[in-house]
């Protein structure tokens, strides 16, 4: 029941928000709803740990003669992703309060609608529900980016939409195809889909359809071309939702649907498909080093980091997968933190060009400290959140094939290079004309960053709870794969 409330509440709030004329009210209501939603997910977490690991299932036969049911629940993986979503959405909403937003009620309504879609994706245990919510998130994402976005938004966002929609359509075919190969009576229930009976050739096709859909969403090289432009042109809240949460949908889909259903393909191809994210790591890192625009810089670091996560997920062993789950959470938190900081910098200096910025740390020590911490989280310094996940992934990859681990390990080195060099150019040195009148963060602006920093240290120092949840999630998946 809690799971259902988690989906329905934002859905209803989103509809209600459309009709609110007063923009102040709209944004406050949106924040309140998002906070209540976080409260409910903490209640769900509490139930999960103290009463049962019974997945908080909700089930309703929706289209019985087509085998589709509203089946939602939470295992460890869903719980992790739900917590991440419900932590980030209030942060995203709150951080947008410093900006002037046109037509605020529609804006916040779309963010909350996106939240409903995300929770639906992360908790769906029915293939068709997964698909429906998967597509549902695309509409708000598109409108946020295209209405409130920057230059060239129309062309860029249409590319984004067409790209991801095409990928998803192939996934739809794969899911329906799987449905007709499940044991009788056919069903879209995840247990049925896991048990579907495919011959090796069919498995390859289904795998490719899934892989393409998820690879576009994450994005994995060479399907990433929509991503940097979209992140740059979207408003900050949109980029945060895209980078922090929507990209996780792809990874989540890999772990929940693609791997348990088509793992034999991964086994047979000897890790061929891991090569794509590995190329992406090197390629995106090199581009990030040479990048001048801060938003584009973050977009490329995201390709690199998520490539590592995708590689870990596809390595088919417990450590790497557990690391992947933890790293999904960490990356979501870190990238939102980075975007918030860039947002603050841009709102003060009107530029995101690294070359034009200099010496901000002199003027804004609070910003400098918070920025540094989030940066270290991204670099995966021990005791920060990035370390836990990346360490496990590299360990798992090493077990899989040492060369892959060696290439993937480059990400750690690269990220130190591009992150610290960027920090050095933007924050250190003497101020110039652009940054001369830079004011430090107000307390109000610091709240979302402090929340993020707390999470960074929490996961970095005491990852017990997160590890436990991820382990539960891994057990579900690896159990099928063995």
């Amino acid at each position, binding site marked *: 029941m809690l799971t259902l409330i988690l989906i329905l509440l934002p859905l209803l709030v989103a509809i209600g928000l459309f009709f609110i004329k007063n923009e102040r009210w709209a944004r406050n209501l949106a924040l309140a709803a998002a906070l209540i939603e976080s409260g409910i997910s903490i209640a769900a977490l509490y139930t999960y740990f103290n009463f049962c690991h019974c997945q908080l299932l909700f089930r309703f036969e*929706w*289209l*019985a*003669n*087509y085998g589709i049911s509203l089946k939602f629940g939470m295992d460890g993986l869903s719980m992790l992703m739900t917590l991440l979503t419900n932590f980030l959405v209030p942060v995203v909403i709150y951080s947008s309060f410093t900006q002037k937003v046109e037509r605020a009620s529609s804006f916040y309504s779309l963010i909350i609608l996106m939240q409903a879609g995300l929770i639906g994706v992360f908790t769906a245990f029915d293939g*068709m529900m997964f*698909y*429906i*919510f998967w*597509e*549902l998130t*695309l*509409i708000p994402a598109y*409108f946020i980016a*295209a*209405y409130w976005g920057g230059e060239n*938004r*129309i062309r860029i966002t*249409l590319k984004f*939409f*067409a790209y991801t*929609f*095409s990928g998803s*359509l*192939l996934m*739809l*075919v794969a899911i*329906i*195809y799987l*449905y*007709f190969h499940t044991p009788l009576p056919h069903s879209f229930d995840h247990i049925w889909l896991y048990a579907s009976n495919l011959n090796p050739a069919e498995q390859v096709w289904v795998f490719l359809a899934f892989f393409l859909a998820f690879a576009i969403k994450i994005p994995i090289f060479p399907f990433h071309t929509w991503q940097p432009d979209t992140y740059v042109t979207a408003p900050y809240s949109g980029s945060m939702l895209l980078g922090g949460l929507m990209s996780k949908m792809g990874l989540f889909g890999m772990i929940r649907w693609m791997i348990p259903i088509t793992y034999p393909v991964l086994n047979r191809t000897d890790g061929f498909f891991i090569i794509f994210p590995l190329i992406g790591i090197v390629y995106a890192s090199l581009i990030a080093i040479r990048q001048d625009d801060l938003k584009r810089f973050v977009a490329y670091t995201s390709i690199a980091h998520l490539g590592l996560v995708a590689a870990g997920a596809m390595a088919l062993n417990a450590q790497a997968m557990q690391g992947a789950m933890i790293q999904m959470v960490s990356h979501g938190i870190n990238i939102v933190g980075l975007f918030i900081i860039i947002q603050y910098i841009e709102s003060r200096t009107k530029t995101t060009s690294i070359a034009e910025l200099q010496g901000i740390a002199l003027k804004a020590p609070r910003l400098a400290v918070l920025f540094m911490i989030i940066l270290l989280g991204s670099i995966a310094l021990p005791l920060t959140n990035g370390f836990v996940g990346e360490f496990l992934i590299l360990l798992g990859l090493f077990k899989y094939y040492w060369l892959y681990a060696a290439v993937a390990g480059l990400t750690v080195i690269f990220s130190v290079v591009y992150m610290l060099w960027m920090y050095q150019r933007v924050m250190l040195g003497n101020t110039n004309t652009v940054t001369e009148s830079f004011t430090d963060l107000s307390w109000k602006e610091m709240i979302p960053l402090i929340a993020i920093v707390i999470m960074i240290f929490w996961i970095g120092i005491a990852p017990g709870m997160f590890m436990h949840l991820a382990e539960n999630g891994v057990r579900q998946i690896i159990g099928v794969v063995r």
Partner: protein
Amino acid sequence: MNSIISLSVLGVLVLFLGILKKKTWLLPLILVGLVASLMMTLLHWNMNRSLFHNMLIIDNTGVAFSSVLIFSTFLIFLFAARYYRKVIRPLDDIYAIMIFALVGAVLMSYYGNLIMLFIGIETLSIALYVLAGSHKEAITSNEATLKYFLLGSFLSGFLLFGIALLYGSSGSFDLYAIHSYVVDHIQQGLPPMFKAGLFLLIIGLAFKIAIAPFHFWAPDVYEGTPTLLTAFMATVVKTASVVAMYRFFSITFFGIHGVWEMTIAILAGITIVIGNVTGLYQPNLKRMLAYSSISHSGYMMLAMVAFSGRTANALLFYSVAYSIATITAFAILILVREARGNDYFGSFNGIAKKNRIEAFTLAVAMLSLTGIPPLAGFMGKYFLFAAAIEQGWLWLVIIAIAGSAVSVGYYFKPIIAMYFREDQGTILQSGKPFKVHILFLTLLTILLGFLPFLLSGLI
């Protein structure tokens, strides 16, 4: 039967009101009459009988589809007052002809005899030839009616010739008699005369449904026809023709579908590709909707190809979802044409700023036509795709999927114009009743997406 009689009476009554010059009574009478005849149609639910020696077969498929036809007409009439608000003369003739066209459409969903099919199609078509030219002053309307009439009568000849050949080989017009003929002769192969007849019949129906390569009339005729009547053409006529095709195949080839499936599959593939790709290059919404309707004919053929017990229901759901979204789009098109003079995509710029409801409804309609969940159009597509995949038509589904992906390119044009481009024109004057009507349609689209089981298990 009920619906045919009640609708005919309604049509005559409308003409009488015209003679009496009771202009204000027209639309209320029509709307009430349509609802009444919808109810009388539904009384036949689960009746399953045939009338006049199998001339008409009253079964649930027929009842369901004629209800959809009557309901769609009802929805179109909701916008009639608005569309004709500047016309002073009584419009009894146009309305009556629309209702007579509807009678023809209903006949096509009940027929059990090829003669009845022909009568139905001709009743529908002749009424439409008149309607297409009903905007007498406009040269485009004249062009539309001439084009439609010439091609339509030519293709009716095909249809009739096909029927004659089928009669010549099987010795009957009755669908069941033809079915038993097919069963007897399928082993040693059907004679060429029968196959030729079948082929000509398919061409005749394909023309009405607007399936490529018999679709060339559609964009021009749609563009020239008065918009309200274009909506009628794109929804009622298409649904009726699809159900006519379905009835023919489902009865005459009951249990044996290998004969015609490949032909229809190829036509469907061509239609989807041509409809979607050409749709990308249309300069205005009305022509774009014409190509959209062509591509949707292609999708509907998917269900026809993957013939099973669920085909009728898949077609029913799809035609409802498609009709509602298309009527919404045409309603907004009427407004935009009125306020801004034309319907080039540029005329939609910035509508969302001041006409939020209108923009929202058109956006939902476009998204539903694209097939984005959780809207009705997605569920419709899902039923079609599932049926086709179940029967092993994977290559056709892949084409359909590619078509859907391409269709984003044109369905998003009005959305982009309305929401993301700067305003350049006058505000649309829609008025309260109009807003209520379009919101009602949008609600239906959303509701059917969330609660597809309302329609999915009927027949």
